[in-house]
């Protein structure tokens, strides 16, 4: 309805926005959701093709998506185009900002790993003195984790040590395969725990906002959604100084429009939410909007071969995966780095890549035949420390395709992250050799910051308005009707895939908001 003032404006439709919409509408609160991109319909936007039918034989189209290492010619059209929505950085400090603006956002494409943070993350400063504690603990978030795990049907085993809290799982009680058991046996005497993977099964093969959250919101009749709405800025009531909606531009026609709402919930993804706050000059009395950008170190790892699985002898030997939760700086302390890393471990069943052999031609093919089915992958997920100097700000000299000022990203890894990467690679080699595997290739160099697609921070939460942007309810310290429910609120990054934490925080914040609105406190 024209000129309607909605109860809540939700900007973004991914996991965090979808959860906010589900919870708020189920409380009877009317929401309008804006998403910057179109609705993807796989039945007419995508079809299965062989690479030879494509102009670049499957290679990433040259010059496009230089900072999206995950892209190729098949999926190039689903990522945000770096020319259309640019961002800037110093040449010697590249940043990989990997974005999806389709309705549902990055919830359409994610690895499904589903972990809780533990109090080694929530109370990290209390443990090692660095940074700040979160204003909440695992106990505060545990009930919401359980509900989110139920909605996303997370599979796993109740085998977690304190640094990997167990949850509401669909129980995975399959025995380890032979290769994984040997890895477990090699890890145990070294004090390294190995747990079953924890993965969102979703429904019909998808674990996204578009199939697990938004349908519930739509069922209430309380959700209105607009696609292709690129938000320019949050608007403010001149009398109260409170946010009261936003101005947006239609992605296709460039028509300028606006909507009004009593409450604004930002769920556009960590850096887009922060960009909006900076462009709107809101919520920044602390001066910390954009500060403490974090993510996780990805890239380092080892590929080994399990001898008895070669030539495709995979039955009972290969085919399972595991998570090694952080084990450094838990009960003991290393002087090489703070915090720690986890390892993703997979006993794969397919071909081993050609890069793992210093050979070519027929000799290489003989190796590929011999090693088929024997690949054992170990890759790092390492915590990046939250540092004030790692930040984003508005680049006043560049705008995107709709004339909206872009972000400048100023962040880099330090010795802490590089030492962690080296330690992880050395440890993987040691474990592989102890398990009787042959190390084929290794890498101890991190990919550029941002690669993990786990960017968090820049609007961190805390009890002190001078040291944080949001309170423990994801609510702006400065504006009581402004909430940020995506990864921007993180106070520390942890090693864990952040999705379950984002979902749970959004659920918790939305229930708090609903309660406050029903009590007319907001």
């Amino acid at each position, binding site marked *: 309805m024209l000129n309607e003032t909605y109860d809540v404006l939700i900007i973004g439709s991914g996991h965090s926005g979808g959860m906010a919409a589900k919870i708020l509408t189920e409380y009877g609160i009317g929401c309008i959701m804006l998403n910057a991109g179109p609705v993807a319909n796989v039945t007419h936007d995508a*079809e299965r093709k062989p690479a030879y039918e494509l102009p670049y034989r499957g290679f990433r189209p040259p010059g496009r998506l230089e900072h999206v290492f995950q892209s190729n010619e*098949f999926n190039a059209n689903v990522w945000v185009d770096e020319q259309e929505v640019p961002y800037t950085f110093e040449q010697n400090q590249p940043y990989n900002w990997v974005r999806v603006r389709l309705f549902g956002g990055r919830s359409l494409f994610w690895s499904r790993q589903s972990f809780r943070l533990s109090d080694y993350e929530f109370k990290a400063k209390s443990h090692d003195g660095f940074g700040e504690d979160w204003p909440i603990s695992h106990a505060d978030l545990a009930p919401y984790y359980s509900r989110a795990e139920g909605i996303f049907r997370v599979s796993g085993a109740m085998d977690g040590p304190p640094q990997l809290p167990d949850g509401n799982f669909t129980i995975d009680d399959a025995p380890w395969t032979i290769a994984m058991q040997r890895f477990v046996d090699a890890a145990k005497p070294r004090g390294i725990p190995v747990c079953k993977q924890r993965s969102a099964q979703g429904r019909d093969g998808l674990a996204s906002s578009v199939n697990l959250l938004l349908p519930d919101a739509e069922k209430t009749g309380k959700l209105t959604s607009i696609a292709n709405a690129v938000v320019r800025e949050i608007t403010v009531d001149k009398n109260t100084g409170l946010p009261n909606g936003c101005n947006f531009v239609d992605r296709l026609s460039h028509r300028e429009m606006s909507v009004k709402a009593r409450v604004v919930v930002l769920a556009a993804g960590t850096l887009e939410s922060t960009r909006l706050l900076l462009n709107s000059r809101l919520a920044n009395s602390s001066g910390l909007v954009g500060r403490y950008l974090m993510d996780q170190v990805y890239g380092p*790892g080892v590929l080994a071969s399990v001898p008895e699985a070669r030539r495709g002898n995979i039955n009972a030997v290969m085919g399972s995966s595991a998570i090694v939760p952080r084990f450094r700086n838990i009960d003991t302390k290393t002087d090489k780095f703070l915090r720690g890393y986890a390892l993703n471990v997979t006993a794969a069943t397919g071909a081993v890549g050609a*890069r793992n052999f210093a050979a*070519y*031609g027929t000799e290489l093919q003989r190796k590929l035949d011999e090693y088929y089915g024997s690949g054992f992958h170990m890759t790092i997920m390492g915590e990046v420390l939250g540092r004030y100097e790692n930040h984003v700000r508005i680049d006043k000299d560049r705008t995107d395709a709709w004339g909206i000022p872009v972000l400048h990203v100023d962040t880099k890894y330090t010795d802490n992250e590089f030492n962690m990467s080296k330690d992880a690679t050395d440890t993987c080699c040691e474990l592989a050799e102890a398990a009787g595997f042959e190390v084929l290739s290794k890498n101890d160099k991190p990919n550029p910051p941002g690669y993990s697609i786990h960017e968090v921070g820049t609007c961190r939460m805390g009890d002190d308005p001078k040291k944080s942007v949001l309170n423990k309810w994801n609510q702006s310290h400065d504006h009581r009707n402004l909430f940020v429910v995506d990864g921007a609120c993180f106070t520390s990054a942890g090693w864990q895939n952040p999705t379950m934490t984002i979902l749970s925080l959004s659920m918790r914040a939305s229930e708090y908001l609903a309660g406050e609105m029903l009590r007319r406190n907001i």
Partner: protein
Amino acid sequence: MLRRDFVRAVLAVGAAPKLLLGQQAANPAPPPPAPVPWLLGLTSKTPIPHVEAADQVAVGELRFFTAQQMATLTRLSDVLFPPMGQKPGAVQAQTPMFLDFLIGSSPDVRRKVYSEGLDWLDAEAKKQFNLSFEKLSDAQADALLKPMLRTWMNDHPPTEQHADFLNIAHDDIRTATINSKAWFVVPEVGAEPRTTEELYWSPIEPDISDRTNVPPHVQAAPKSGHPMPSYPR
């Protein structure tokens, strides 16, 4: 009119509607007389013409590499990925010409890796064997190439000078060959790699607003003395 003719005509008039209805049921109504709506008849049943990828049936010109660099790349491709069993090699899959297109369209850094790498390889062949690389025997090429091969993981090719080129080029040559139609049409044996086949995403509602800035086409005919009224959008 004779009486029997009259009776026949009356019967015919009486039967006509039924006959017409019968015809309608058997054959859908014919299209309306022209002009018809432009898109009439285009449905999900409309046959889709079969087409080939252009580089399967046509040739391109050398655009980026010099003739000497292409000769070196062709020999390198043949050495690194020769035909094996029934499967074609890189040369049969037109990989060198494809790489001329791919690398020629790529950012400067990648173009430089290839240009300098191919020049280095040729110079090294002349230095060690007094022959250009394209003329080396398999054993001579092996002596040059083998010491430069490395194992490496995704996104982290070796950074040593020349080893970077050789290992990146090897990877590109393999991928381009395996993803060619020439490779695809020959069935795999054992663990032979397969052509990548994935979900291809078309551009989804691409933003075409920039077209408003494109100048209009030049008019085909000069303006007449009796112009049509014009209300530009």
